[in-house]
């Protein structure tokens, strides 16, 4: 009884009917933007935005479509970055293997953390993921291969598949774009598949989904691992882009940032996390000189979003256009 009451609480995002046509259009606009943008804007900045966009999309898969708030997603971003950087630098592996190593690390961590965290629901889930991520942070802080405060620096980008020279900024950019689009489409495919429908059913009413014979825990765990894996993909790619893996990416502030991006862009919208990531990264770029004011501004955005702007930018836009984006 108590469980039913818990899950019947208003979900974080409205359940949207599927109308793909305008979403194709939005997708084309997004791709066009990212193809043209590097010729107008500093590519390194765009690559950062793309990595965070993928990270936010992966996070959104959990909060937006399963209703699980993970407050420890930095752990997958950061540890994947470390492993990718270590593989590329210390073991001399080519970039594709380095990225795979990082991504696989995140998948394994996601499996362990996910299996523990799905044993509780709602607010406890958030606290457990946060606490376990903090444990991973302390591990990264203490273990020698991460080089503590210095991080792993001067990571070689190398030759992708032996043919693409990633030291060329534009080559790197389009590889990052391809990685992002691959992850984005995988998430899009997932949430519009029968599997994704079951996830939404669990979000709306878990006991009912269970009573219909779905093993909710398995679905949640698969979604969690997928989300962690894609976050890892983002982190590993980011490590190669910046040739650096550092503690910043494992810290809880990073977990908070991805929540902010998704919330600002629109929880449970397809394009929201991308828009949110671009806005937040741009904002941080301009506020970087102001030190701790960045945190204050982030906090203010959180408060405004939660109090008055719960649909987020894309959610509001979709509401005005009467079309889910």
């Amino acid at each position, binding site marked *: 009884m*108590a*469980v039913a009451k*818990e899950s019947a*609480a*208003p*979900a*974080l995002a409205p359940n949207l009917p599927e109308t793909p046509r305008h979403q194709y259009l939005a997708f084309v606009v997004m791709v066009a933007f990212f193809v043209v943008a590097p010729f107008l804007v500093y590519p390194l900045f765009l690559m950062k935005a793309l990595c965070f966009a993928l990270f936010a999309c992966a996070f959104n898969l959990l909060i937006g479509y399963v*209703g699980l*708030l993970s*407050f420890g997603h930095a752990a997958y971003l950061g540890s994947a970055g470390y492993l990718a950087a270590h593989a590329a630098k210390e073991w001399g592996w080519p970039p594709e293997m380095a990225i795979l190593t990082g991504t696989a690390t995140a998948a394994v961590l996601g499996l362990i953390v996910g299996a*523990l*965290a799905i*044993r*509780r629901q*709602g*607010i*406890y889930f*958030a*606290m*457990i993921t*946060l*606490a*376990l991520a*903090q*444990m991973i942070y*302390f*591990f990264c*802080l*203490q273990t020698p291969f991460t080089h503590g405060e210095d991080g792993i620096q001067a990571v070689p980008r190398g030759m992708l598949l032996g043919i693409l020279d990633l030291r060329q900024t534009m080559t790197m950019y389009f590889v990052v774009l391809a990685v992002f689009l691959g992850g984005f489409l995988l998430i899009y495919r997932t949430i519009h598949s029968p599997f994704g429908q079951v996830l939404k059913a669990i979000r709306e009413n878990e006991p009912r989904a269970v009573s219909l014979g779905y093993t909710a825990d398995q679905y949640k765990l698969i979604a969690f691992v997928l989300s962690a894996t894609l976050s890892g993909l983002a982190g590993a790619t980011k490590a190669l882009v910046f040739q650096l893996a550092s503690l910043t990416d494992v810290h*809880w502030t990073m977990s*908070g940032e991805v*929540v902010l991006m998704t*919330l600002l862009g629109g929880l449970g919208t397809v394009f929201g996390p991308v828009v949110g990531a671009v806005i937040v990264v741009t904002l941080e770029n301009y506020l970087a000189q102001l*030190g*701790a*004011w*960045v*945190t*204050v501004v*982030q*906090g*203010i*955005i*959180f*408060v405004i*979003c*939660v*109090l008055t702007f*719960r649909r987020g930018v894309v959610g509001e836009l979709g509401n005005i256009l009467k079309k889910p984006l």
Partner: protein
Amino acid sequence: MSTVFGVPTQALFGQLLIGLINGSFYAILSLGLAVIFGLLNIINFAHGAQYMMGAFVAYFLLQWAGLGYWWALLIAPIVVGLFGIVLERTMLKRLYQLDHLYGLLLTFGLALIIQGLFRNQFGSSGLPYSLPAQLTGGQNLGFMVLPNYRAWVVVCSLFVCLGTWYVIEQTKLGSYLRAATENPALVQAFGINVPRMITLTYGFGVALAALAGVLAAPIYQVNPLMGADLIIVVFAVVVIGGMGSIMGSVVTGFALGVIEGLTKVFYPEASNTVIFVIMALVLLVKPAGLFGRER
């Protein structure tokens, strides 16, 4: 020098004491979280920031008004508690109809704002806050020297925790509170002003955090980020204990502090993570927490 399990007794008891001190803070903070969660169904992420504010109010009182530790112990919880009441009235109360996660997100944002503002003003290095004159020095217990102030912290927090337990479990006011936790609509129907009770409860929980901050000020320095990492550990404590029982959170808080202290003696590398490991084990064995019940 005598040893226990190959560890000098002095070091062992020293760390045990530090563990007890940390445990006191875990206990007060997780108690505050549990009280707030019970009635508001909100996890107060700003708890760490409010703990820090308590320490800062003590610092301001000393710097600007010349009021010392004992006044701070009284005034800081009231000031910060009132601040909490303002937050509840202006922001949190708008969220009660929504998914509980929004409360977590809002208070997370508030924590960022508060910590950011203090960091802008005071930097990240700590400001010293001296021990009250009455509690300097220590007692020689033969096997170790017990600093008076640390003994005071443990006693004081035990007193606060037991007092809170008594009020909630044994008084009429507490019975209203417990009833409102179970069924607010029914309690309201009996003519009890539930919204006001919710406001005061939040204020009280926040005041507890501030009190812990004042107690902590002379031990750790007064630092804008002193509550930022602590709150995550307290979350783990809350998951381990479960928020169902007041006594549960107190006992869990002290016990985990002691375990953390002992880990520092026997396996220092794990001292940061031992609480999280325990949390993982508890989740495997008893997902609802040691004293919790499935909700």
